[in-house]
């Protein structure tokens, strides 16, 4: 059983997230959002300015991803981005991670117990030598 077959797409957000750059960014990520069960990580480390349309774009991406049973997670929030997300009460809607790597890993982290056991079993059987 291959749990991690679906790719995790990590996108770095632009420094200024206003209506124009948000539209552009949305256009760039739309193909990934249209995939089946999309898994996206947005890296906000560079963001120094974000306005209401930037926040709305994030919500739109999350909504699109949820429609297709996927998720959007945020990583490396700059102070500016964190303050605006807190101000607009949207920080509680996203899973937020310290780094993009942690965010990407988290997509395979939340497995139901039965699947986790099966995965472990598969790994064990792959490493065990076949008896002659």
């Amino acid at each position, binding site marked *: 059983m291959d749990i991690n077959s679906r790719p995790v797409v990590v996108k770095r957000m632009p420094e200024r997230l206003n209506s124009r750059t948000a539209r552009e960014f949305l256009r760039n990520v739309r193909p990934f959002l249209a995939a089946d069960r999309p898994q996206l990580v947005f890296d906000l480390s560079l963001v120094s300015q974000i306005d209401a349309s930037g*926040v709305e774009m994030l*919500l739109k991406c999350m909504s699109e991803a949820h429609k297709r049973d996927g998720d959007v997670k945020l990583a490396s929030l700059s102070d500016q981005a964190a303050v605006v997300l807190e*101000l607009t009460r949207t920080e509680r809607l996203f899973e937020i991670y310290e780094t993009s790597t942690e965010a990407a890993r988290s997509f395979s982290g939340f497995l139901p117990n039965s699947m986790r056991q099966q995965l472990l079993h598969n790994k064990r059987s792959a490493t065990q030598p076949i008896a002659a």
Partner: protein
Amino acid sequence: MDIRGLLLANSEHHHAGGNQALDVPLATLDVTGKSALQRMAERLQQYGISQVSAVVESTGPSGIRNFGLPSDVTCVSVAPDRFWKVAESAFNDMAQSGAELVILVRLGAYAEADFEKLVQFHLDRKERVTQMAADEQKLEIFCISASRRNDAASLFRTQLAHCRSECPLLQHDGYLNQMASMRDLRQFAIDILTRQTQTCPAGKEIKPGVWSAPGAMIEKGARVLAPAFVGSLARIRSGAVITRCSSVERHAEVDCGTVIENSTVLPFSYVGAGLDLAHSVAGMGRIVNLHRDVTVEIVDPKLVASMSVGSGKRFMTSAAEALTYLPKLAFQGVFAAKKAEKVDLQATLRKTSPALGTAAGFETSACDTEASHKFPNMVVARRYGHQ
């Protein structure tokens, strides 16, 4: 005895602290209705020092400016490079016009000093210059014999760091706030609202712990929870919540559904609809978040904006809004595809749905006002008390 007061307010103090978030001296910013400068001028007057002058650093045009000081206080605003020169000449003018003692206070720190004790201590010891101190730290509060011009000059020329002669120290045991950063400014508001200071909020206590200045407008459906302060001509729109030692200063506006928690909204500032401002000082297009210790410039006027200080400009804006209100309604009535359903605030508050707006497949609105059209995707997610 002719005793006069000289107040100095400049921003060097907080430049050194590395936390200069705004371009004005912190002492000139309103805290629960009055600035530290105003409070100090009034305190001097309470001690019978009727002639008070103030020298305030300003990046704007130099000249006489009031800074909300009482009308009998002479106030001069000067450019930063001329600040100390003007301060020295203000002292010399006082000495020449017959002052015997000058109480010099630089804000800086706000200390509720006992000026009577200071003068008595100075006279008893026949000193030239006496300084106040709190524990080991020297405060920039001096009592200077006006005839000792050279001692005063040495003080002004070293920016109050040294005096030619030795200054005895008088220990201060009252309230003290360093006022070096926005955190201190916020703490000052908390201390005033929780009555840890002798100075009070500049307004009427409309219910226990809630102060409101004349002209403050708290709309129906808005909640102001004690302790809190609403300044003169400030407007708290429907559904907004002001709580936990928050202070909304004069002419500020908090739009629908916004929660202001443990924060200060500076004068002439607008905080948009459906927001959550916590542990911050907002205004002048910036938010100083005290938890994160960061200053963020907000470019989006739907979130935080500055309103015009000039009353004429504000009047014109209001008049334009009033004139366009009916045509706008008529236009919406004719061209809107479907009449927007009137939003019940309580029902909206009860919704745990986050600010997804149309993206989640339903319309949300912080409240049914113009502001909600500007920012339709925001909704109150946090609930307070029984709301």
